[in-house]
């Protein structure tokens, strides 16, 4: 994906649809690509993303001014690297509203960043409409609708998007273990995963990481087709 420092924002209008798994996947993908992303988990106090990457994640409660400063100021104070921002559904709307007021994306562009938004579209039309509305938000360089096949999606499969294949409930449960790392798995550490689940995960990662790898040209092409 992008070589230019990029802010990857993972968001959705509903919860429990794979946002944190996607943020983990994205982070591991960047790490495997020898990038050095820093993560901001706005799901305080639990910090589910921080649990997986404790050394490179800041926990910020976005409902407070201090939390907003921790998010926006941290990114702008240290440009030149990638950031992954995990937004729980309760902060998604206010994040983009605050961004609009504070002109964060404009400032981020000035600091040399690109802004990519990954939006998980679930199987409701409310989610689809929310995604289409957010796609028009000013300052987003790449809007990525995400279809997570585990929960289903109303986003048209023929339209450019990132598709995450469905995981079996057993695999999903196994990867939720705090010590489980997709990156380590790719690098050969099965992390005590049974043979059948290891095979399933291998297929999942092969498809998901390939989709991520081809994402930018596919979406850019899709965007061009609209004109």
């Amino acid at each position: 994906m992008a070589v230019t420092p990029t802010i990857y924002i993972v968001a959705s209008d509903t919860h429990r649809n794979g946002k944190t798994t996607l943020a983990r996947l994205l982070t591991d993908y960047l790490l495997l690509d020898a990038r050095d992303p820093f993560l901001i988990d706005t799901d305080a106090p639990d910090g589910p993303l921080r649990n997986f990457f404790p050394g490179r994640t800041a926990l910020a409660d976005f409902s407070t001014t201090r939390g907003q400063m921790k998010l926006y100021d941290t990114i702008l104070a240290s440009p030149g690297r990638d950031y992954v921002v995990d937004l729980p559904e309760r902060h998604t709307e206010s994040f983009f509203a605050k961004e609009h007021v504070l002109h964060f994306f404009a400032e981020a562009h000035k600091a040399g960043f690109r802004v990519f938004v990954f939006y998980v579209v679930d199987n409701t039309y409310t989610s689809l409409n929310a995604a289409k509305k957010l796609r028009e938000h000013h300052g987003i360089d790449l809007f990525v609708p995400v279809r997570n096949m585990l929960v289903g999606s109303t986003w048209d499969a023929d339209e450019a998007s990132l598709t995450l294949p469905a995981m079996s409930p057993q695999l999903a449960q196994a990867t939720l273990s705090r010590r489980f790392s997709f990156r380590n798995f790719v690098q050969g550490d099965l992390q005590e995963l049974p043979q059948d689940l290891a095979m399933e995960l291998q297929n999942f990662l092969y498809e998901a990481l390939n989709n991520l790898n081809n994402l930018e040209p596919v979406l850019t092409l899709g965007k061009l087709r609209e004109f």
Partner: protein
Amino acid sequence: MKPTLILVGADKGGVGKTTVSRSLLDFFARKNVLTRAFDTEIPRGSLHRFYPAITEIIDLNNVAHQMRVLDTMESANVPVTIVDLKAGNLSYSLDLFERIGVLEAARNGAFTLGLFHVVGSSIASLDEIGEISKYLQGIEYVLTRNTINETNFFEWDETTYRKYFSQLSSTQEISIPKLNEMAYEQVDLAGVTFKDFVDNRSADGTTAKFSFVLRGYVRKWMAEIDEQYAHVKILNSITSGNRY
């Protein structure tokens, strides 16, 4: 062009009078209108802390200090003079200005006189309106509801409020919006103007390290104030250069 004298005052302390003075000075700076200011909060001078280059601390009871403000309006070659009246001194100051002929001179057209009367949410603030109404003839009176520090909405009863309002012939009313508390504190601690804070500049002109988020809050607040000030006749005539 006639000079303009703007008084900013309240008979109640802690209503954010100095903040209003600061916002006015910022507003004029952004519109490239030269100003000078007098801070009557002697010896402390909280306005002076933010605008040391253009603010003098004076004692309004001292005749020499009164002369520094009033006798130099023409010669100072600065179109706008702002006087931040000491907390609790509004009625006293207006009475003083009436006695020494300042209000009369303004009524006769020697200069334009405006009063930004900053009020809080209590009924005591409404009582102030009744007390000062006798001085207001010929003055551009702007009732300024300040919500910058307020956590509650104004609790004035509308009927009571209108009753007080009916005592005044021509009143303009504006509302200073609330500013994020942390942003307000940080500007105060930095001791810079709101504009410099937004521009990330310290008092000595060097680049500062103010929070992007807090700067954004202040910028938004300033834009909201500009919307309020856009309706104020005396400010419009100054910024458009149309001072009759």
